[in-house]
């Protein structure tokens, strides 16, 4: 569904992504893990058209995304749940959700928008309870649910999530990730960026490890969870522990 080949992204003269290739197949949940500054968010921004200065190839359903503006990419079926949620804080939950379907209103897709509103509120019942409340007054977990629900209102075929667990209590992280599993079971294709590598790999089909703008490891999520390199760098094992005693 999504194919990225030899992606190189630049901030001025700095190359933040240095030749990344990855793919997401229909119905897969892919985890992209890596430390701060590895280039994870940059990669998502390039896919969504939020970054224009890049080389390489990004194909969505075999069509190149290069040169397309973000609205055109959303219309093709790619939605982003950005890092930090970026909700419209003074606006109500309902209005935030309707904004997620903004491009569809122009197509007078009212009937299906109403159905989708119903669906996302079924997925996150708390949003129904808070429908008229200002988004900025929601708790962190509720805001994350709203951000996901808003992205779903665009009826994406590929959902990109940038650090959805950031700043959330562990039980809320679990809740959000369980929702992603539920979406996957409903057929959604998902590319998930996470610093919480263990949680992400536990729900993913496959994973990629990004370091300094390059993929250094990829494979089935279960294999990555068992990989000592990944454990050392991302799952909390002490790096030195592995080098002491044996060369």
């Amino acid at each position, binding site marked *: 569904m999504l*194919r990225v*080949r*030899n992606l*190189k992204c630049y901030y001025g003269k700095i190359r933040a992504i*240095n*030749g*990344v*290739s*990855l*793919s997401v*197949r229909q119905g897969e949940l892919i985890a992209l893990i890596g430390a701060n500054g590895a280039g994870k968010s940059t990669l998502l921004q390039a896919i969504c058209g939020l970054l224009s200065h890049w080389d390489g190839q990004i194909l969505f359903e075999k069509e190149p995304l290069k040169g397309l503006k973000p609205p055109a990419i959303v219309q093709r079926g790619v939605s982003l749940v950005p890092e930090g949620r970026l909700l419209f804080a003074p606006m109500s939950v309902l209005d935030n959700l309707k904004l997620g379907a903004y491009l569809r209103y122009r197509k007078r897709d009212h009937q299906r928008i109403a159905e989708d509103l119903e669906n996302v509120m079924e997925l996150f019942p708390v949003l129904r309870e808070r429908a008229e409340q200002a988004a900025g007054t929601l708790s962190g977990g509720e805001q994350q649910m709203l951000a996901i629900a808003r992205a779903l209102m665009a009826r994406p075929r590929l959902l990109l999530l940038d650090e959805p667990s950031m700043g959330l209590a562990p039980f809320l992280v679990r809740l959000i990730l369980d929702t992603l599993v539920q979406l996957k079971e409903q057929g959604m294709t998902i590319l998930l960026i996470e610093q919480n590598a263990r949680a992400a790999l536990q729900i993913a089909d496959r994973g*990629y490890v990004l370091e300094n703008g*390059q*993929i*250094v*490891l*990829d*494979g089935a999520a279960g*294999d990555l969870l*068992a*990989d*000592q*390199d990944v454990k050392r760098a991302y799952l909390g094992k002490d790096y030195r522990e*592995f*080098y002491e*005693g*044996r*060369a």
Partner: protein
Amino acid sequence: MPIWNTGEECLDVEERAQLQLERLQSTLNRAYRNVPFYRNRMQDQGIEPSQIEALADLRQIPFTAREDFSENYPYGLFAVPLRDVVRIHTAQGTSLKPTVSGFTKPDLAVWREMVARALFAAGVSKPDILQIDVDPGLINWGRAYKDGAEAIESSVIPLTILTPEKQLMLLRDYKTSVLITSQSAARQMMHLVFRVNLNPNELALKTVILVGEPPDIEIQNRLRDELHVKPWVHYGLSEVPGPALAFECEARQGLHVSEDHCFPEVVDPATGGAVPEGEPGELVLTTLTTRAFPLVRYRTGDRVRLVPGACSCGRSLSRIEWLPTRTDDMRVIRGVKVHHQQILYLLERALGVLPPHYRFLIRSEDLRDFLEVWLKVDEALFSDEVKEMEKLCLRLGRELTQELGVPVKIRLKEEGSFHSSKPSRHIDDLRERLSSES
């Protein structure tokens, strides 16, 4: 037709190319960061992994040769700290230093999967009783086949070094249905079956998996006609390391390469350039999923040609035809690779000096292939007691057998026995041809 992992083996060709590119790039990134040998090689050529933007770009990277293993002995080519390595294998090299390869836990899972898919393609299934009978030089493969067969949940009789007569006894009494062996050993087993007047129909054997040697159609035909079994060929390397990198399917039109784990290239052995598709050349392999011991553009010395077109079995994995001759001066004895230089090193170590005159031959006796080493009797080797000279032959034979993993016999010869005054730089193959057996 049975397919173990339809998702991977029948993957859309375009999707596989993407997968191979992703895996190749991450392999090169790891090799470049973690293995000084590869980093230096690439830097010498002015290449960085990020410049490899297509599978064809791999050609910019220098080859890895067998000699590089000795130079980086023992762990110089490992890409992970030793603590991550859960198994260490040793294989014969071209010098006194063997080839050492390591596996992480995920590496072992990959090899188990590759062996399982190759066995499954040969129809091996849960009810089968599988017997592994390879020479000590292929002992690592014995383990890999055991793991792969256990993944299929067949009953496995693991590799045990027994006489051919004992192996035949197990084959008959344990009702073995699948035998994994080298072509030479299969030929010997077949000969033995008839020598002891055993009716092949009394055996439960239905499948013979032939490993370690390029296919010989005559031997396969005789296995089919006289033992009433189906022979299947698997291709593997002890260096990469592993058996069943490529395997036959029911269509029998070449061997499918597990190219989701190992990327094959066929090159002209003289120039190193790619040969046109379908033309014979040397097989060069790059591992795509190996963590501990990645190999980049390893020259196998095996001559193959890529079989063009799609296979009727439904697998989209590309196919190779394994051709009989090698591109280097290694010789294969009962599936085990032997190099004349390695024999010389071993002789020098055992005798204290390099023998001035020698000859190396591959022969067979009772269809049992072995290496015969001729040494000229000179002052250093001569003794006025025959017993002493016999002892020397036995000791040398034993040491070389142990080191090389194939049977070795030492013959002391007078000067007139050598055709040339210069020692031969090759191993001469004087094995009996199959036609002379009947």
